[in-house]
């Protein structure tokens, strides 16, 4: 065989081998991380985790108040963030498709989408916590809402742009006013994609820790008072994992297991919902 060709072939083989190795390497981390989560966290999984409060070191307990706090703040954040996100996305896709405002908002939104979440936490500390004078569940929920908005804006705009214009024209031709055309025709056509956006946003915020550290802080006890500090699963994991107590660390692992699988389930659901839309 021509030696030059043989050399090129060898080089190609090496490169292909490397790319296969890289892929195994990438997948390996996923397996390793999920594996150690199951290994360390599964044994701690019991009914008590869901029915008892976070314990003081040395005694048994669960994560109930943390789970409740997380659910409450996540829910509120979605309630606050989703309408704003959907409306802004609607403006960008329906009213201001070619306007200057849209391109600026799109750019700003992309920056917000990947801005460090701890900076969002500082912002909410400055505008909510500091004026109020104390940490609170509300502040935590608002911080999370600020993270929800860009995700929803992005997906809403993308999904509405995918709705064919002939649908809009058909609606306009029967004399449907624009607002009804959007809410009854365009939204319905883009429904699956918009739900995906919300699910992705929930997945994103349910593991967020940094913005909660100094907005909602933490609370060892049961609290549904949104005006006071509120416990949340990620913050409890943070605190318990860094503590020197073995039983706290074990609870942190169990919490980590719960969060991870909840988040992964959410993002897989979102993906499954989004797929048929995209291919059609």
């Amino acid at each position, binding site marked *: 065989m021509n030696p030059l060709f043989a050399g090129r072939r060898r080089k190609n083989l090496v490169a292909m081998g490397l790319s296969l190795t890289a892929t195994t390497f990438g997948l390996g981390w996923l397996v390793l991380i999920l594996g150690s989560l199951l290994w360390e966290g599964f044994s701690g999984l019991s009914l008590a985790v869901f029915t008892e409060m976070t314990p003081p070191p040395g005694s048994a307990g669960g994560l109930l108040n943390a789970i409740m706090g997380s659910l409450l703040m996540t829910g509120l954040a979605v309630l606050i963030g989703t309408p704003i996100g959907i*409306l802004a996305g609607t403006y960008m896709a329906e009213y201001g498709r070619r306007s200057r405002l849209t391109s600026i908002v799109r750019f700003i939104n992309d920056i917000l989408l990947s801005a460090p979440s*701890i900076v969002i936490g500082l912002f909410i500390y400055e505008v909510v916590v500091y004026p109020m004078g104390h940490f609170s569940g509300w502040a935590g929920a608002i911080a999370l809402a600020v993270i929800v908005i860009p995700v929803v804006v992005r997906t809403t705009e993308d999904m509405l742009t995918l709705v064919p214009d002939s649908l809009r024209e058909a609606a306009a031709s029967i004399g449907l*006013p624009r607002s009804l055309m959007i809410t009854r025709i365009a939204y319905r056509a883009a429904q699956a994609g918009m739900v995906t956006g919300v699910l992705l946003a929930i997945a994103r915020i349910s593991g967020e820790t940094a913005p909660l550290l100094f907005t909602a802080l933490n609370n060892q006890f049961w609290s549904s008072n949104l005006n006071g500090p509120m416990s949340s699963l990620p913050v409890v994991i943070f605190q318990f994992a860094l503590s020197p107590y073995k039983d706290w660390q074990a609870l942190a692992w169990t919490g980590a297991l719960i969060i991870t699988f909840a988040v992964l389930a959410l993002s897989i659901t979102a993906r499954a919902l989004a797929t048929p839309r995209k291919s059609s």
Partner: protein
Amino acid sequence: MEPAGRRTVADLALQTDAIGTRPAADRSRVLAKLKFSDLAFHGLTRAAAILVLLLLSGVIISLIIGSWPALSKFGPGFLVSERWNPVTENFGALAPIYGTLVTSFIAMLIAVPVGLMIAMFLTELCPQFLRRPIGIAIELLAGIPSIIYGIWGLFVFAPFLQDSLQPFLISVFGNVPVLSALFEGPPYGIGMLTAGLILAIMVLPFVTSISRDVFSAVPPVLKEAAYGLGCTTWEVARHVVLPYTRVGVIGGIMLGLGRALGETMAVTFVIGNAHKVSASIIAPGTTISATIANEFTEAVGDIYTSSLIALGLILFVITFIVLSFARYLLLRIERRIG
């Protein structure tokens, strides 16, 4: 789903009969109502879009106001001073900035080649039926909350590094003139190298998925032409795909870099939180976000809090520049593809 009030108006509009048979006055009233709700909806969506703008300006303004006491007290020296002393209230940002840059650099050094190789595997080599599952699995890495990387890094990864990789690096490079400074000191397990490695894993899916997307947007005709000349797969990737997609790939890398710079929880667990600039990458250090996460709730005194907010402002400015650049590049390639 719709509020009851709007539904009746909508029904009237949708049923031509209902409007047609009604008296004229009624009809004009309905139309006026519709016109009003149309305007209101337009205004509402516009307001929401403007709110997004205000959000970002709000972040910038509040950070500037919050950091003003510290910035005016320490001046530009804040950026280059290594001191960090809560007792004497004397602060400087050099150590966190240095740590942020070093850990992100280590992360990109690993994530970029690996990410590009995975993207190449997914677009050129992988059998069709495995592309989606493998792509999704890699992207799931991005879905794992960062606190999970933190707890895993602290309890699983750092001890592993302490026992294996770090002693190995120290013994191999310990006597090499320049490199010995990089790997100086006892193997703690935690430190800048560990943080950089974990960041690399977290950034990997961003680099991979954007590279894969731009790779698969290369016109097949270009690749076919190269294959027709007798190029190997590697040569096609290296001399056709990569030059064609360069702008998009750099955009993806920048996006990953933005993520690495601002990552908080994973780093906070494994960085070691030492406010000093050390040449050794296995030594403990700190990053901007880790410093804020660790010290913010314990900060007493206005200057301390304000210094931490100033750190946040610096972080935001750095990531803002990196992300803007990424978006600009990605926009350019999007235009070309679209």
